[in-house]
């Protein structure tokens, strides 16, 4: 399963939404995620891939595309695939 697919599964599970609405263009706001959902999603993705996503970086994400790209760029460098 691709990194993108795994992230979509994690986020859909936390937010309790259909993963089809999570696209590279959509935002947490689009899928009605609250601040707790966002933190839990970040933590779950960190644990899944063995990487660190500091809040300072996460705040720069404009869309899931940015989130996925960050993880893709850091897995392998510091984490597990």
């Amino acid at each position, binding site marked *: 399963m691709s990194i993108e697919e795994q992230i979509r599964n994690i986020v859909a599970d936390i937010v309790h939404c259909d993963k089809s609405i999570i696209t590279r263009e959509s935002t947490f706001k689009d899928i009605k995620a*609250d*601040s*707790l959902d966002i*933190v*839990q999603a*970040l*933590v779950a993705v960190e644990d899944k891939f063995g990487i*660190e996503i*500091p*809040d*300072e970086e996460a705040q720069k994400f404009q869309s899931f595309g940015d989130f996925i790209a960050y993880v893709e760029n850091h897995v392998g460098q510091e984490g597990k695939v």
Partner: protein
Amino acid sequence: MSQSLRGKLALITGSGRGIGRAIALKLASEGADIIVNFFRHREAAERTAKDIEAMGVKTEVIKANVGDPAKINEIFDTIAHDFGYLDIFINNAASGVGRPVMEVDLKAWEWTMDINARALLLCAQRAAKLMEGRGGKIVSISSLGSFLVLPGYASVGVSKAALEALTRYLAIELAPKNICVNVVAASAVETEALKIYIKEQSGLGKTKDPRQITPAGRMVTPEDVANVVAFLCGEEAFMIRGQTIIVDGGTSIATPSLLGKEQSS
């Protein structure tokens, strides 16, 4: 400056920023070696560690969410491996979701309780083992919301009440091991967390700026809280057990007619 904590090892959860950072710096200034714990803000934690190192004591940074029991075990496994002992544990890390009680769902409740209350239980159990034979100090940070009703503070307030009650049990049951357990409860402290809380609640027209309702004429600072924590970590506080010490500039004992007045400078 007093070096009464020279040679002691202190773990402060959530010590990258705010009150935790102030406590870490204060205990370091008293000579303690410091374990800085953070959850989401590594840069802040590393800045704190750098400032501590500049004081000539040892420091280590550990990332962990104290709401996760496995991560708590990682913290204490690391301390056990790297040091083999612990003298001071400060249960400061806190989180919460600002909602009225009728809107607190299971996820928000568990998140808040796990980080604010359950973490004390699990950390104290591990910390006490590392304090075996040498005694120690455990201090938690609470807030006036444990007994006052604050807007949008239901889950956090209840978690703080649980933390204070748990502290009383720990204080008695750990007393034979020479471990002193207490709480410092502060009113609104000027931190990033407070700014977020005021922004959330003022949008709903539910809270006043705390600077206008403190009898002492100014807000409580992180350093005010750190000073009391440092006192409780010293031997002069040895006979204080299971207490909640309030640091609020008089806010909690003032009648409503005394609050909200302009303070003279």
